């Protein structure tokens, strides 16, 4: 059996790769890709904790199942918003999105 910590190390690296991308990317779609990485790493953690620490129960399993569904919904709405922004401004770089700033 593989140690539980190994899975957690992989998901931690994935999560911080996502955070790095979120901090340094300046394109809305690239930032959304980073958010997907973060969500995905959390799903791995739930499944791993469920499998190794509470094998008789199903809470972590269902939490990752519903998290996958919620993140799919979130991505669809975010991409709709991004396409709408592109239609109005012809650009999706974060630097140019200051129309709604006070």
């Amino acid at each position, binding site marked *: 059996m593989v140690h539980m910590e190994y899975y957690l190390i992989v998901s931690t690296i*994935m999560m911080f*790769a996502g*955070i790095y991308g979120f901090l340094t990317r300046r394109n809305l*779609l690239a930032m959304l890709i980073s958010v997907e990485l973060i969500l995905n790493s959390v*799903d791995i953690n739930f499944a791993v904790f469920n499998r190794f620490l509470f094998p008789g129960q*199903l809470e972590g399993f269902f939490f990752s*199942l519903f998290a996958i569904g919620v993140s799919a919904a979130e991505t669809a709405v975010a991409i709709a918003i991004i396409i709408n922004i592109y239609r109005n401004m012809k650009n999706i770089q974060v630097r140019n999105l200051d129309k709604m700033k006070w």
Partner: protein
Amino acid sequence: MNITLDLIVFVVLALFIVVSSILAVSTKRILRAATYLLFVLFGTAGIYFQLNYSFLGAVQLLIYAGGITVLYVFSILLTSSEGDQAEKLKKSRFLAGLAATLAGMGICLFVMLKHKFLAPVFEHGELPVREIGHALMSTEKYGYVLPFEVISILLLACIIGGIMIARKR
């Protein structure tokens, strides 16, 4: 510790995931970033299969790798012109982001590896789909019919919202 087939499969998957996720956030072209994201999602599905959660792995492949990535590729092709490169960031911003990431990762790994978890046990054997279905539809304790209905409402709201936001005026 002795080397088993389990461990070899895990190491291959872990290297695949780590390399792809780092490339996904560091590559200059955004279409390549989406492709590396697809690789990361495949690797994650592999980890679910290795944990004997085949249903979760199949859901991951269907929804993430099948649906979301296609959505990303479509919207990238719609919104970015050819030869579009990520714009150069100021050196100080880049270094600040990198430092924050590395510090956070160090703290997280330290806390996680120091923490004493409950004694981990690994039971081989597949989680039967019948059990998942019964838990998803049951109203008893440990039944998940309420979140199931709530997520269906959420998906409906998301469909309507997506159409309303993206339609032509």
